[in-house]
């Protein structure tokens, strides 16, 4: 049952001007006073709205839209005519009006809500809903003067729409706030409409008009020009704007058989003689086109007078009037110049019809520049109508054939990207201080460089690839949160002028961090893989730290060998290199004390530690950080525990550790000290992963 909500009958508003204000006063007391001049902001406007109907009011500035809204909402009194509204009106003409800046959000709901005519008890009942809808959290109980404009809009909209009115009047206010809240606001308005409220709104956004409204009313100079279906009125409005610049222009409108509205306007100094849609191959006219079919639009225009410059524009619209595509020969820099009288100009617009199935229309325009308001020779809406059908592609919907393919894979093992998400979910590195832009990727001298949390630059994707770049981006410059939390803490304790050894250095990040954090320090990096080593060298170069690092290509293990053969990670082939044990490390490093030893030696960590146990306590490093590997790499299910107990038996102390199952990266970790003075060192507590969420899922 469609009930009439609003009836506006021939209303008008006149603003008289008096020769002096005293004449106005005299008129109040009954003197017959003539006004000097009259300005009719609105005159003779009549329309009605039923429940559930959405009507947009359009028109140029000064057309009388605001005055009309104000008369309907009751703030301005009409001079003539009547407005009848059955039920409650809610007018959102400006958000946040009547708010007191000193009051909190909650107090303002009571205050401003009172101004909107709500009762005390009513507002108290609505309060939880308003608080919930506004989503401004604890700000709800802070003074409104501390709000951002977005928060203000949220609160104001929540208050304005807390009660469903029979008639909702919205002036173009919903363009405030973020897109999330705009979306939420529009949903709220739709909800009202679905519950039977009539919505009247003023807008300049013509696309939302077509989408939201059942009817559009066009006002011009205070008069109602048109009241009808959205496409009809909007096209007319567009043509009318063009007319303002062009007095010789005329507008014609008629509705075609298929329901498409043809609107033609212009001076006709250049006229389109023919407009056809042809198949590109056969050159035959078509009205049904397959998705992906090559077609062309043939337009032939003729000038009736000499023309300096001619631009041809074409636009494709879908059934709802949304522009799918549009351009013109001014944008493509192909406009024609110096056209003579009676000359023919032919345009061929070729395209592959990658549109979704449905009905489409082609609109063309002949103008003298890219905007049709300067000089409009001919503008014709929806001249060619054609249907697109899907002949040989899998079913899809929408207006664009994007050539999308689906690929899916199933697996129980964690892929690299899934691992990246798992690592990025660890919060341990959150509170380590970070440089601005940490984690971002920039192009420097032609290579992509990523900034780590401490400002170090590394080759983006150099360490393992793109998924690692994602981890570092997501964690703002960290790649292994647990390990880095501990390393960062240890950097407060290491002494200047010392050495760090990094075995399995790969991208050498920990060495670089050490060199950056510790003055006058050196590093010794060992890595068997030539490509990985190259990444490390490049990273050192990027940070001007090359001169402080000694590089070695070698395997790491329990014994020292001249020639050891093993499969190299990136090349996937056997490589003969010397193998280092702890003795080799000591010899190559010379006499300098080893402050920090970092070892990530793919499964041979236990053997390497054994070689360390052969050396006296005085020759051991101060701190070691050992990655312990999964049994699929090390061959033993107890590698982690064995390493830990070996360290204890050597007289060292494990300061922190996590097993493979507790890792947010891939490997287990042991941090240990060998000097008794360091045994009491308090390291931050790391979070621990659970086995089934870790890389190897407890297998």
């Amino acid at each position: 049952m469609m009930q009439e909500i609003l009836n506006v009958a021939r209303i008008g508003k006149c603003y008289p001007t008096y020769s002096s204000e005293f004449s106005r006063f005299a008129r109040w007391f009954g003197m017959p006073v003539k006004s000097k001049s009259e300005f009719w902001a609105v005159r003779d406007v009549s329309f009605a709205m039923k429940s559930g109907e959405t009507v947009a009011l359009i028109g140029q500035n000064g057309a009388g839209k605001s005055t009309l809204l104000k008369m309907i909402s009751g703030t301005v009194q009409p001079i003539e005519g009547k407005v009848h509204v059955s039920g409650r009106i809610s007018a959102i003409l400006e958000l946040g009006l009547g708010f007191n800046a000193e009051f909190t959000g909650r107090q303002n709901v009571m205050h401003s809500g009172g101004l909107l005519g709500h009762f005390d008890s009513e507002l108290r009942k609505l309060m939880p809903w308003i608080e919930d809808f506004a989503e401004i959290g604890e700000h709800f109980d802070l003074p409104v003067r501390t709000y951002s404009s977005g928060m203000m809009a949220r609160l104001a909209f929540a208050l304005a729409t807390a009660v469903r009115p029979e008639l909702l009047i919205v002036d173009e206010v919903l363009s405030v706030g973020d897109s999330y809240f705009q979306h939420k606001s529009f949903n709220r308005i739709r909800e009202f409409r679905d519950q039977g409220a009539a919505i009247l709104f003023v807008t300049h956004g013509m696309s939302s008009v077509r989408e939201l409204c059942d009817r559009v009313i066009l006002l011009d100079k205070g008069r109602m020009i048109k009241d009808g279906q959205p496409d009809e009125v909007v096209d007319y409005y567009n043509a009318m704007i063009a007319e303002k610049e062009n007095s010789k222009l005329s507008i014609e409108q008629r509705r075609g058989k298929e329901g498409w509205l043809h609107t033609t306007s212009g001076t006709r100094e250049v006229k389109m003689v023919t407009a056809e849609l042809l198949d590109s191959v056969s050159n035959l006219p078509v009205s049904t086109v397959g998705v992906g079919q090559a077609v062309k639009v043939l337009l032939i225009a003729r000038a009736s007078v000499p023309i300096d410059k001619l631009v041809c524009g074409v636009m494709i619209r879908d059934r709802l009037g949304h522009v799918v595509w549009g351009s013109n020969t001014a944008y493509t820099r192909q406009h024609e110049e110096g056209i003579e009288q009676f000359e023919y100009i032919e345009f061929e617009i070729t395209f592959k019809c990658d549109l979704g199935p449905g009905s489409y229309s082609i609109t063309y325009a002949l103008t003298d520049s890219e905007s049709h308001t300067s000089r409009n020779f001919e503008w014709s809406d929806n001249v060619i109508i054609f249907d697109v059908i899907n002949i040989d592609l899998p079913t899809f919907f929408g207006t664009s054939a994007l050539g999308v393919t689906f690929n899916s894979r199933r697996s129980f093992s964690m892929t690299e990207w899934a691992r990246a998400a798992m690592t990025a979910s660890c919060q341990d590195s959150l509170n380590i201080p970070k440089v601005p832009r940490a984690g971002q990727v920039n192009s420097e001298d032609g290579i992509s460089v990523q900034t780590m949390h401490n400002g170090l630059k590394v080759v983006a994707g150099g360490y393992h690839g793109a998924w690692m770049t994602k981890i570092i981006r997501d964690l703002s410059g960290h790649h292994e949160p647990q390990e880095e939390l501990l390393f960062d803490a240890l950097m407060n304790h290491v002494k200047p002028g010392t050495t760090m050894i990094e075995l399995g250095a790969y991208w050498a990040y920990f060495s670089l961090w050490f060199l950056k954090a510790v003055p006058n320090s050196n590093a010794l990096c060992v890595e068997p893989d030539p490509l990985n080593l190259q990444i490390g060298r490049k990273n050192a170069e990027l940070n001007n730290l090359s001169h402080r690092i000694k590089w070695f290509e070698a395997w790491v293990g329990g014994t020292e060998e001249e020639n050891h053969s093993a499969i190299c990670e990136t090349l996937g082939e056997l490589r003969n290199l010397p193998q280092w044990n702890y003795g080799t490390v000591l010899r190559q490093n010379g006499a300098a004390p080893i402050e920090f030893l970092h070892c990530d030696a793919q499964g041979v960590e236990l053997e390497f530690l054994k070689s360390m146990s052969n050396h006296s306590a005085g020759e051991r490093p101060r701190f070691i950080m050992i990655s312990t590997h999964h049994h699929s790499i090390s061959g033993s299910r107890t590698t982690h525990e064995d390493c830990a107990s070996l360290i204890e038996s050597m007289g060292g102390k494990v300061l922190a550790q996590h097993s493979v199952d507790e890792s947010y990266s891939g490997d287990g970790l042991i941090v240990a000290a060998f000097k008794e003075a360091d045994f009491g060192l308090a390291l931050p507590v790391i979070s621990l992963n659970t086995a089934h969420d870790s890389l190897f899922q407890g297998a």
Partner: protein
Amino acid sequence: MPRTRRFGNFDTAYACRLMLDLADFQVHEKITYKVFSEMMIGHASSAWRYRQFILSSIRGELKGRFASSKMGALWHILNPLAMAAIYALVLSKILGAKVGGVENDAAYAIYLMAGIASWGLFTEITLRCLNIFLEYSNTMKKIAFPRVALPLIVLGGALINHLLLLAASVMVFAFFSHFPSLPWIALPVGIILTAAFAFGLGIILGVLNVFVRDVGQFMLVVLQLWFWLTPIVYPFHVLPDAMQTIISYNPMLPVVQFYQDIMLYNKWPDFVSLQYPATLSIVLLLVAVFLFRRASPEIVDVL
């Protein structure tokens, strides 16, 4: 003390009838007693319906005006007290002795305080009403609500301020061993009368000020002059006879004297003398209602 009661026999009922007859001239409708009473009921019921907004606006005004100052609303009281103190300091030697009749060193200061309290209520309501429609212009343009709420907000705020000031005065007086006595219970009569007079005048001027902004500027000057034409700083009887005759036309004279009688002399004030300002207040209120009715649809048009 000599008193002039020139307007003692003013016929209030006659004045009202005169006003309504005058109103009959206008074109739109005849304002009869019936229409008039309907108007008043309308104003009262819409004010009652919007009481939440009115009350919270009053709270907002008190809160907002001094929001960023440390002592907040205390300034409301300190300002007039300081004013009285300054006048007392500067003028006590010249005028102090003239305020006879009370055995108190602070007699002149108390005299000043009484006058300033009364005058302060009058000017606060008048001046704020003068600008209230301009202040709320944007709200009036975009939200439909009873406009009568606006002057009521002013009235409420001013009355609360006034009561706070009176309370503070009592404490200051106590410091000078000057305590309230029975006649103080008549004070509300003076308060209501001052407020009614200022309210009527303020609305009339406020409405006119929307159309002719000069009214506001002009009134600032008028109120300055009016202040000095009212015996607040000086006692009425020090004036020469000619001057006394002129000043007896001042409707604020009996009102201020009413306050002074109670607050300084602790004696029963002259109720009969209030007949003139009371009648004038009723006339002004009637004009205000009438004017408000006429101008209301056009206020938004020119804002």
